[in-house]
């Protein structure tokens, strides 16, 4: 599928995944061996190609349960793909990561509660990491820890505290401090700001932007809040049911979505001023089961534009404009339907 990626011939991606699949469950179930209860494998990822370019902030958005966290966990090596390839700077990443590779690709998990060791104080947690990866000499550990905490909007006095003593948002900031402590090249951030108040969120977004500018950090940013995505990211990839269905530059994708699912997302964004939800692209129908992916286009049962071809053909992710990929057979038809202008909806 590499001909559809608009990267130059030399591999310039920081991280690239190709034809990635991940299934859960399956063979082991006696029900499936008896042929009862339907298929028991769940396809969390069903053929994903994506590259993260050096120094870019790429947002990964989409349906709950579409496989975003699964993809992230494969990228940091905390779970293995069923098939497909992950490469890091052009070299295939071993399924068992050495310490150096795991340092370079860091992750902030979606649920900070379960990802922080409850028995370590914040100071101990940071010190162990800084020493293990030889980031600073022992005598500078304390100063470096304080610098990291300040970066995420926390103060020195939290060094002696345990994770349970923090609020949800404070814990998320600890998780971010821990990830950037080891000076990674790539940061995979799974909903890093959704638990934060908007002021701290603005600080973290600014932090991500400056880490990118100063350290050339590449960031894969998983988020549901599309106002945040619009603000922060350079490019956006949209997932639906285990596939990437659209990729484009941020400005382009919000101005000219070329997949009906992206369009439904945009039309569902809660707005700060008037309630401007547009019913035309509101999704109806049952969301499909990842156990039985619909034939043809996986989005067709819920799509306002679906036609006969959509029920028969599984559309590949193809170029539909400069640096714009879509997996929709009617991408051109969709382009002709204008987006609502929020300014015109004011009463």
């Amino acid at each position, binding site marked *: 599928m590499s001909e559809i990626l608009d990267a130059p011939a030399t591999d310039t991606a920081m991280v690239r995944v190709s034809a990635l699949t991940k299934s*859960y469950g399956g063979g082991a179930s006696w029900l499936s061996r008896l042929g009862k209860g339907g298929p028991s494998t769940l396809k969390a990822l069903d053929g994903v190609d994506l590259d993260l370019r050096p120094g870019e902030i790429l947002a990964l*958005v*989409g*349906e*709950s*349960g*579409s496989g975003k*966290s699964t993809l992230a966990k494969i990228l940091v090596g905390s779970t293995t793909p069923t098939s497909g390839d992950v490469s890091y700077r052009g070299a295939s990443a071993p399924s068992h990561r050495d310490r150096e590779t795991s340092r370079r690709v860091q992750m902030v998990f*979606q*649920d900070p*509660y*379960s990802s922080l060791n409850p028995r370590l104080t914040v100071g101990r947690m940071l010190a162990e990491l800084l020493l293990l990866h030889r980031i600073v000499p022992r005598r500078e550990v304390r100063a470096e820890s304080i610098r990291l905490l300040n970066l995420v*909007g*926390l*103060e020195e*006095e939290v060094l002696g505290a345990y994770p349970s003593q*923090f*609020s*949800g*948002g*404070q814990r998320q900031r600890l998780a971010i401090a821990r990830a950037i402590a080891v000076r990674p090249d790539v940061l995979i951030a799974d*909903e890093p700001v*959704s*638990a*934060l*108040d*908007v*002021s*701290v*969120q*603005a*600080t973290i977004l*600014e932090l991500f932007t400056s880490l990118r500018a100063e350290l050339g950090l590449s960031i894969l940013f998983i988020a*549901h*809040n*599309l*106002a*945040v995505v*619009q*603000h922060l990211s350079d490019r956006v990839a949209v997932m639906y049911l285990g596939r990437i269905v659209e990729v484009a530059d941020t400005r382009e994708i*919000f101005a000219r979505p070329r997949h009906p699912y992206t369009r439904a*997302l945009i039309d*569902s*964004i*809660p*707005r*700060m*001023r008037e*309630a401007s*939800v547009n019913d035309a692209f*509101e*999704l109806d129908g*049952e*969301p*499909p*089961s*990842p*156990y*039985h992916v619909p034939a043809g286009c996986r989005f067709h049962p819920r799509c306002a534009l679906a036609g006969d071809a959509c029920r028969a053909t599984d559309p590949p992710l193809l170029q539909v404009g400069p640096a714009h990929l879509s997996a929709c057979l009617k991408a051109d038809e969709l382009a002709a339907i204008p987006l609502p202008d929020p*300014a015109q909806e004011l009463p």
Partner: protein
Amino acid sequence: MSVEGGSAPLSVQDLTIGLRRPGGRSVAIVEDVSFDVDPGQRLGIVGESGSGKSLTLRAVAGLLPRGVEVLSGRVEFGGRDLLTMPAKDRRALMGPEIAMIFQEPMTALNPVMRVGDQIAEGPRRHLGLSAKEARELAVSMMARTGIPDPARRAKAYPHELSGGLRQRIMIAMAVSCGPRLLLCDEPTTALDVTVQLQVLKLLEKLCDDTGASLVFVTHDLAVVNQTCSELAVMYAGHIVEAGGVKDTFRQPRHPYTRALLESAPDFDHPERELIPIPGFAPNVADRPSGCPFAPRCGYVRDHCTEAVPPLEEVIPGRLAACFESDRLVEVLA
């Protein structure tokens, strides 16, 4: 389903929550918080991370974490004080009358019980349904929160579900008994916006159809705008501003609210710079004297650090705890 005699379903008065330290000294984390919620009304609580939003909800639900206690105040539900009623009576209200959706679903779900059974437990116990009926209700509640293939998902354990699916399990559990008061702590942050819209409409419908009241804690100001009519803004354990959502967003009268709005991304104004609030939130153990926001406030004057500004009506229908509220007259775009 409305409550007779003018007593709001939920009335919180001067609620102070904190830690009781050995030797009788106590540290207040949430201080003198008061608010009422009418039948069918939807109140949004926003504010700083660590300001006490979750503790306030948990105090109402009687589910404070170990070591944290209500130090003073009243929490009335349908005219009865929840804090002084026997623990048994209070527990009996949880589920059929008051339900809560937690911020971190993983900590609230039982990891070794199938999610469908967890949802069915309440209806079986409180609505007198048979095991089979309760299971069917569980599956239909799951479907209403937009969970695909609900009958099969009902048999899953929490760790087998994505973050958003787990959150919808919590929501299905909370609404399954048709409560009169629904306490939501960031119920939709893990959901994609199409599902979020569906869930918000479900909650709205529950309020409109049954007169249930909603208290909705979130950081997403756009969600508050879309879902709630009333707003309370918390900072450092206090409510610093309260009023109608639309009016307050248009013309905030407390500098913290204003700063919050200026730091929030607005999808319709992508070019606007996000301005974080300078400095750090105060540590609960040593709050500054005077207004807790003073060290970070752009409107601060000498008297602000001398006394704590009371929460007062500054314009009809709006309360603000700021000595300088009159200077905040600008209407935000």
